[in-house]
Structures are given as structure tokens and as C-alpha cells.
């Protein structure tokens, strides 16, 4: 019966609020109270479950909350309690997302993901060049390619320099303070400078470079920390068992620093996404960041939310991909 009481309370509160028209002004407080009662009810329910169902139950809760959130948002927006212009209901956002995927913007010559269902027909008509045109029109591809190219161009030298700094005291003493100072500078601030440097200020050059610079400093400093943090007894063991300099690097230093290098790469990936979206706000005609900005300019909030959803999906997907690579590269970490 313990679970019944809070559920009854939730129903009673909702009815009470509807009866006296309290939703419009008090919905935040009412929702907070409903959430509290829900938590109490859920915990009471869990206690009555057999032990082996506890983990699936927790996993169900992880899904339950976002669903409740979306349902609440949908109801609040469609009944006008929150302004549907600035907070369009999820149904409208989903529709906007569908529009973005399906439609081709003739003015900008872009679409969201490049209309992949056209690939077979394009291949038939104009071969690979036709398919390339599809990639060129895709906002997601534009953002992804800039981000990944910049990420790789920045990370690889970052790992190399980071390793050198970790292993050599002199280099570290010279570079550390300077790099730490530049690291703190928001890389987006460098963007105008890069627009001066490159021949085409609105081209891909400055965008990729700013991502590369952000990634570089992050990866270099975290790699250096990783190398410095290697347990000295492992270095001594390597030396004592006859490893020469190259063997020490390959068998001891590199594998020992991989965990921290990967955590630096994860951070750099997240930062790269932030930087590229910000740059696309300011100076771009393509990309998901541009899409958010453009739909702000033409006052289409539903499409803005849809674009944000796409950015979120990109972030999640990229992190998952990196984790996959991490698990393959470090099989000893379970």
C-alpha cells in the first residue's frame, strides 16, 4: 500500500490544480511536487520487486524520465502554459526535423544529411560525382568533415609533442608555461586572426585550423601529464629487463600513457564540436551550427531545436565511436 499513497497524491494534486486553474502560474512548483511524489512512489515500487529485476528497473527509469519530460513539454506547449513560439512542442520539433531531412534548400543548395536515399539513382545517372554532390550539400557532412579533419590535424602533433614534453625535462621546462597560457585562451577568439591569414576568410581553412589548434593544446598537455604520471617502478622494471630506448617507448611508455591520451582525445573531441558549432554561427553558409543560426535569423524555432538535436546526436555518436576505438586499443582495461 506504500506505493499507492504517493500515486494517489499525484492524482489528487493534478486534479486540484486543474480544478482551480493553478497550472498557468504555478506549473513549475506543481511539477516539482509531482516529481517528488513520483520518486517516492518509484522507490516503494522497487522495494516490492524481486532482487533480480532491480537492474532492468533502473534501466527503465533511465528511459522513463526523458519520456515524461517530453510528454510534459508537449502538454505544456500545446496548452499554451509555456510559450509555444519559443518552446515548440516535441511534436512540432519532430516534424521540423523531418522537413530538414527530406527537403532540399534550393537557395543554399543544402539539405540536412544529404538525402542518402538518392545515392542509388545518382550513381546510376552520373556515377561517383553525383554522389559527391550529395555529400557537398549535407550540413551534417560539412560539420563532421571540418571537425574530424581539424581534430586529427591537431591531435596527432599533440600526442607527439606531449610525449616529448613528458619525457624530456628541458623541453618541458621551456614549453609548459607558454602552452598552458595559450591553452587558456578561448580558441574562438583566434578565429578572426585566422581569417586574415588564410586566402579565403570564409573558406574551410580557418574553420579547420581553429579546431586543430583547440585539439592540439588539449591533447598535448594531457599527453604530457599522462607520460609524467607513469609509475616509476614500471620504468625501472623496463630498464632492468634490458629494454633499449625504442623498446622502452614501444613496450612501456606508449601503452602506459594510452589511458590518459584517450581521455585527452575524448575531451578534445567534445571541444572540437563546441568550437566548430560556434565558428559556424559566425562565419559559415553550411553546417549544423549555421543551421541553428540561420533558423534564428528566419525565426523558425522548431527547426533550431531540430538542429540542436542533430548536434546532440553527433556528439553522442562520436563519443561512442571513440569509446569503441578505446576498447580495442586497450584490451587490458576491463
Amino acid at each position, binding site marked *: 500500500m506504500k506505493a499507492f499513497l504517493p500515486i494517489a497524491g499525484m492524482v489528487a494534486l493534478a486534479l486540484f490544480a486543474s480544478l482551480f486553474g493553478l497550472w498557468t502560474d504555478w506549473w513549475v512548483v506543481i511539477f516539482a511536487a509531482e516529481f517528488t511524489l513520483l520518486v517516492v512512489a518509484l522507490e516503494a515500487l522497487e522495494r516490492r520487486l524481486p532482487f533480480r529485476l532491480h537492474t532492468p528497473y533502473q534501466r527503465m527509469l533511465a528511459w522513463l524520465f526523458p519520456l515524461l519530460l517530453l510528454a510534459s513539454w508537449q502538454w505544456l506547449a500545446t496548452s499554451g502554459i509555456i510559450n509555444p513560439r519559443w518552446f515548440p512542442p516535441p511534436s512540432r520539433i519532430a516534424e521540423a526535423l523531418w522537413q530538414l531531412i527530406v527537403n532540399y534548400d534550393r537557395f543554399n543548395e543544402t539539405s540536412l544529411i544529404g538525402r542518402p536515399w538518392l545515392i542509388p539513382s545518382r550513381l546510376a545517372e552520373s556515377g561517383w560525382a553525383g554522389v559527391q554532390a550529395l555529400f557537398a550539400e549535407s550540413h551534417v557532412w560539412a560539420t563532421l568533415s571540418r571537425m574530424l579533419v581539424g581534430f586529427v590535424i591537431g591531435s596527432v602533433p599533440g600526442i607527439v609533442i606531449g610525449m616529448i614534453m613528458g619525457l624530456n625535462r628541458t623541453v618541458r621546462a621551456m614549453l609548459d608555461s607558454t602552452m598552458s597560457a595559450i591553452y587558456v585562451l578561448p580558441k574562438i577568439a583566434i578565429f578572426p586572426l585566422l581569417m586574415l591569414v588564410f586566402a579565403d576568410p570564409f573558406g574551410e581553412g580557418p574553420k579547420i585550423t581553429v579546431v586543430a589548434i583547440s585539439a592540439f593544446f588539449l591533447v598535448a598537455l594531457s599527453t604530457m601529464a599522462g607520460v609524467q604520471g607513469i*609509475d616509476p*617502478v*614500471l620504468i*625501472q*622494471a623496463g*630498464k*632492468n*629487463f*634490458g*629494454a*633499449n630506448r625504442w*623498446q622502452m617507448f614501444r*613496450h*612501456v611508455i606508449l*601503452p*602506459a600513457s*594510452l589511458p590518459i591520451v584517450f581521455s585527452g582525445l575524448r575531451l578534445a573531441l567534445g571541444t572540437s564540436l563546441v568550437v566548430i558549432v560556434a565558428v559556424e554561427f559566425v562565419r559559415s553558409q553550411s553546417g549544423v551550427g549555421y543551421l541553428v543560426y540561420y533558423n534564428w535569423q528566419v525565426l523558425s524555432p522548431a527547426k533550431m531545436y531540430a538542429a540542436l538535436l542533430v548536434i546532440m546526436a553527433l556528439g553522442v555518436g562520436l563519443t561512442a565511436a571513440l569509446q569503441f576505438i578505446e576498447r580495442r586499443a*586497450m*584490451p*587490458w*582495461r*576491463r
Partner: protein
Amino acid sequence: MAEKVIARSARKVYPSMAGDVPAIVDFDLSIEEGEFVCLVGPSGCGKSTFLRILAGLDDLSGGEARIVPGTDPKRPLNNVVFQEYAIFPWKTVLENVAFGLEMRGVPRAERLEIASSWLAKVGLKRFASYYPSQISGGMKQRVSIARALANDPEVLLMDEPLGALDAQTRAVLQEELLRLWEESHKTVLYVTHSIDEAVLLGDRVVLMTAHPGTKKSEFVVDLPRPRDLSTTSTARYAELTGAIWDDLRDEVRAAMEAQR
């Protein structure tokens, strides 16, 4: 028997802000081939430092401390079994044991076979493809011991190898060490805090004074071999451990005073 480890007037100082700090002064030691010598002393007396100097991981400031090379130039002079689990977490148990051989260029099939047989000798054959994170502390130390033995060094240097283990695991491994040593009769320098362990394992126990470390005294352990844990209940064992503790007690007090 030939002298295998020679130390004469060995001296080690560490530079510091307040001048040179002596860690080891005027230390003499001689180990014969095939002898199992235990080095015992209070914390901070420099016994681990001395072992590291012999291993080539640190330099002497004066005097000499060296291992006499044998007839085979390809055999490594020494290998160390460290106190902490110094096996590589990113290599499997088998790869770890084969590490020294791999560094020396022994071909893959041969070194894996040698490593495999040593794993069997320490009772870990089943765990060959496990990673260190998947095995217990006692097993990790067995891997560390196997790695050193598989490399077949002239001298085995052990730096409190059982110090990080619980008492029961330690007892089991002490018996295993005795058994392994009976097979090979390697020259061993074994550093430990524990007098009980030193008398059980060693042919000779060398006492070091508190910081700065020098040789205080030596005790010959005439307990018959082969030994096992039952040796610890003999009268002679109690006599020896008692006599050594009497000698060491003042040094331990001095070390504790110095820390205050």
C-alpha cells in the same frame, strides 16, 4: 665457490638543500655464488637503495659495489623482483614473463615456451592469457618472480617482494620461493623488514644500521635444507630470530627516534 657480489666501502649520498645527505656509508658485503643472503634493517636504512645500486638503477657515490660477470656474456647480470607489482598491466601474464627474453631478442616461439614452463613452475599455467588486473596480488608477485627467473640472471635481487601481501599469501609464497630456489640454487640478495622471513629463507642474514646505513653484523643461518614452513617451529630457528632481534632492536629504536 666464487664471489658473485662484491661491495667494499660502498658510499651513497643524496644532494639536498642542506648539503649532502649520506644514505649508505662504508658498506661491505660479499656474496658467494649460489648463496641466499638476506639484508635486514630498519626503515630508511638504505637497504633498498643498495639493492637498486647493484641493479644499476642508481649510482654509487664512492667505493665499489658490483656483480661479478660469469662465463656467458649474453646472460644478464641481474634481475629485480620489486615490492610493488611491477608487471606491465597492458601485457598478458605470459607476455610479462617473456618480457626479459623479448628484450634480449629471443625468437617468439622459444620465449613463449620458456615463459610457459616458468608459469607452470609457479602454478599459474591456467592464467597465461589473463591480464594483471584480473589476478590477485599474490598471483601478480608470482608473475613478477617468474619473469625474473625466466630471464636467467646471474644474480636475483629481491626488494621486499612479499611486503605488500597479506600474511597467509606471504607464507605460501615463502614456501614456493624455497622450493624454486632448491631447483636452481641461484645467487640471491633478498631485502626484507622481517627477521622471521630472513632466517627462514636465507643462508646468511646481514644486518644494516639505521640511517645512514652500514653493516652492523652478520648471522650464519645453519638450519638444514631443504626447508619449509615447519622450520619456523624448531628451537634453532627461535634462537636465531631471537639473537638477531636483540641485535637489531637498538637500531630500530634509533630509526624511530630519528623520525620524530
